[in-house]
């Protein structure tokens, strides 16, 4: 499946000197959802008073030793299964040696030669509806570092170790991405998978998901160019910005006759630019070697089978099923599976109801309301059952689309059921002919001049219909009104 030298690139950047192709690979650091840290019993929860979630092990006190957390291993395996990757029963923890004040041991325990998860694959649907497949090279377990604060004091850096030792999964892709857009969609998809699996909360603001981005450019069909690594980008938007800036920078450099030097760069969110952090010559020599405080990890087939049993339906499968079971189109299905809570909500609403109408109400009225109120779907004031009831009232003709929207707003405010609101406020649609006829007669009487116009310009009929419905406070059934107006005007 190597498409590294594909002469028909998916995405090109045009330039007066010819076309360019951007090649992107990602290393995603995903914080594992667990109670305690990877090698110690202190809390892995976010935040807390400085130095509160810190054990003697996390602070690397002399003589302290690591003991691995089973749940973190399970989560890594589960994620591997979710990425359709091979699970390595035998894996080894190595030390990655470097000095940094928020790295108390002077080394990070990671996995180098023998990661817990091998090659996998992620399907990403692009905006045009086509699919690309991003290959995962590996996933390994490692410790997070503490946190450095450079803004508390002008002369000093402050170190907090609450995060020190929290479990991370590093997920490494092959260089299979070709644009900022693809990279953003990949990270979004990966985050969705992690959230389905509940192995990482995917909360980028809290740093639960961070990306190192490898970017290089080349002429289509050429060998891979020299890459630069942009470290620690912590939002999907910034990932896109960093790639766009960096690829343009590299193209400019090459077009100005310079060579790209392999280096580590930082993305500065205030300027939207990347800048050099250290060159390859200054690159670390991490001196990886097996951690002598730990033995190899050996997973039994039973251990893995247990996890297989717990796997939820994943986004791709769910999408296929929703399309099959509810006859949804790909676009609607994608919206619903982008968060498993959406799909769950949908399936309650759509039970025994028109799926298309259900999707439309969810992705339309409900999402815009939740967005307005900054609420998550599981905090929605309108339960899935209540939305379903509202749709029932539309289907049985009790409510027109217009009325339904009004009822929806009241539901949002009062959290009452649609039926209750309709009953309390007498909001049901007027469908009986005599009532509507009275209204039509009234409007025609009041606007006899316009009747003549309407006879010449049939488009005027719409105006009459609108007036009638307005007169009914929106309750008159629009098709009945239309029918009667035509009849009365004599068209």
């Amino acid at each position, binding site marked *: 499946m190597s498409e590294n030298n594909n002469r028909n690139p998916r995405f090109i950047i045009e330039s007066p000197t010819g076309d360019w192709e951007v090649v992107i690979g990602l290393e995603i650091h995903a914080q594992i959802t667990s109670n305690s840290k990877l090698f110690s019993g202190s809390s892995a929860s976010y935040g807390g008073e400085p130095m509160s979630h810190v054990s*003697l092990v996390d*602070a*690397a*006190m*002399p*003589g*302290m*030793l*690591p*003991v*691995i957390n089973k749940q973190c291993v399970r989560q890594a395996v589960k994620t591997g299964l979710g990425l359709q990757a091979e699970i390595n029963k035998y894996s080894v923890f190595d*030390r990655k*040696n470097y*000095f940094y*004040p928020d790295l*108390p*041991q*002077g*080394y990070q325990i990671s996995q180098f030669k023998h990661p817990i998860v091998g090659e996998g694959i992620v399907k990403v649907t692009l905006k045009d509806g086509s699919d690309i497949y991003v290959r995962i090279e590996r996933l390994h377990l490692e410790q997070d570092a503490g946190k450095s604060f450079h803004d508390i004091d002008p002369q000093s*850096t402050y*170190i907090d170790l609450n995060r020190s030792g929290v479990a991370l999964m590093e997920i490494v892709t092959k260089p299979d991405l070709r644009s900022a857009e693809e990279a953003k969609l990949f990270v979004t998809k990966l985050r969705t998978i992690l959230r389905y699996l509940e192995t990482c909360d995917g909360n980028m603001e809290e740093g639960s998901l961070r990306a190192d981005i490898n970017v290089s450019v080349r002429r289509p069909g050429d060998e891979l160019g020299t890459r630069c690594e942009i470290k620690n980008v912590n939002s999907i938007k910034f990932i896109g910005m960093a790639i766009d800036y960096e690829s343009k920078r590299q193209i400019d450099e090459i077009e100005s006759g310079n060579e790209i030097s392999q280096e580590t760069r930082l993305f500065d969110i205030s300027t939207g630019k990347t800048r050099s952090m250290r060159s390859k010559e200054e690159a670390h*020599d991490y*001196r*990886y*070697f097996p*951690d*002598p*405080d*730990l*033995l190899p990890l050996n997973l039994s087939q039973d251990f893995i089978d247990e996890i297989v049993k717990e796997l939820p339906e994943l986004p791709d499968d769910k999408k296929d099923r929703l399309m099959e079971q509810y006859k949804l189109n790909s676009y609607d299905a994608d919206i619903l599976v982008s968060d498993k809570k959406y799909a769950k909500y949908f399936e309650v609403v759509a039970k025994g109801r028109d799926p298309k109408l259900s999707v439309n109400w969810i992705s339309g009225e409900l999402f815009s309301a939740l967005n307005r109120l900054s609420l998550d779907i599981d905090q929605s004031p309108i339960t899935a059952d209540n939305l379903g009831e509202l749709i029932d009232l539309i289907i049985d003709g009790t409510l027109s689309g217009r009325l339904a929207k009004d009822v929806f707003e009241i539901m949002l405010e009062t959290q009452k059921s649609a039926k209750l609101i309709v009953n309390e406020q007498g909001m049901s649609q007027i469908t009986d002919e005599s009532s509507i006829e009275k209204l039509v007669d009234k409007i025609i009487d009041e606007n006899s001049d316009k009747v003549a116009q309407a006879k010449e310009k049939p488009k005027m009929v719409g105006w009459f219909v609108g007036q009638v419905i307005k007169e009914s406070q929106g309750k008159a059934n629009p098709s009945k009104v239309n029918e009667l107006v035509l009849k009365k005007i004599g068209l």
Partner: protein
Amino acid sequence: MIDVRVLDLSSIRDSLKKGDFTSKELVKSYIERIEGSSKLNTYNTTTFEQALDRAEISDGKIKKNEAGPLEGIPIGIKDLFCTQGVKTTASSKILENFIPSYESTVTENLFKSGMIMLGKLSNDEFAMGSSNETSANGAVVNPWRSRNSEKELVPGGSSGGSSAAVAASLCPLATATDTGGSIRQPAAFTGTVGLKPTYGRCSRWGIVAFASSLDQAGPITKTVRDSALALQAMAGYDNKDSTSANIEVENFENYRNSNLNGMSIGIPKEFEELDLSLDIRQNWEEAIQWYKEAGVNIKSINLPHCKYALPAYYIIAPAEASSNLARYDGVKYGKRVPGEDLDSLYKRTRAEGFGDEVKRRILMGTYVLSAGYYDAYYLKAQKVRRLIHEDFLEAFKTVDAILTPTTPTTAFGIGENISDPLKMYSNDILTVPVNLAGLPAISIPSGLDSSGLPMGIQLITNHFDEKSLFKFGRLIEESRVNIEMPTDWWIKK
């Protein structure tokens, strides 16, 4: 005052039980002796007041029949074991003021069995050395001297404070650690019994790490029986140490009812070719004779890769150490030498905080792990390690124990080898293979050389078979010439 010179662990245990003396009287006697022995420079830190308080509690427990198995018996702790509230320095400037808030598992086990700490014993800095001369607190002096000589000798290392203190009766038992011979070599140099248990037998939790895959705690005592008693109290599974062996601790003292007749001992051919002093070679032959007489089959065995153990060790141990000692960076605890920026803070702190031997090993270890050299050095050494391990496993298919001298020479003079690292390293040639293979081994005093200095014989058995070490070791004690402990030449009156 009690004459503690004639006492050992088991006799103290019996006397305390019988009420011959109280724990408090005993502790006082040791304190007085330690105070008079400052010339030997064995203790980095003393904890006399706490010891006296603890002794009172122990006396109460003994009276009420609530005593632990080693209740009220004083002990010296190598300054590599973290002790709660008591300065733990690893004999390094970089930890000169470090006070742990925690107790190492091994010391906690010992204290739970009723033992009372007298203080923290000197060692080579971070346990790196074979003479105890690399301690930031200065050299420890061996209580033994050659006949008709006043030359000061090293007590061996790295557990030189422990070996000298036991030999000089400044404690009946001292904890020690052995990474390449650091229990057995000092025991051999001081006429004491040094036991390196199987890797994984004693928890490493709370012991300042030197080389994690090799480090193992054990006791230095006056007798084999004491060694068994001490191991009983120190050993045990610890779920805080991922390399702790979940194996039941049997009753080691039971070794005394066993018979050696029909068992077999292996003599490694390759060790015969080593550069050993004549006295030590003769002593080894003598020991072989004792076993023959006891009905033990003596077999010549091959350990073909053991001659490579020393160079492999001096790659593996520094490699692990270079990483283990990275935590001493002046940020979280320990010494900090300020610098204009972080990098200079690190570099000055570590340059001033570590001594020459430690720095040499950190640099060596960094080198063998660095890009381009890893395969040629570190990986090669790890492969040789496996071959050495396999040599031993092969040997134990045919023999119950292996018998060798502990050291190629007896104790040497202070300052004699310190400037020549390779010469110093060669001290460990007989002990290092055991660490690489993770096996248990014991050094037992087996005689005196022509100048009157103690020699040690080493017994090695299969993994987790410490009991056989005691079983075989007893015969050395019974067969050797009487080894009189040194006279009190150093005592300040």
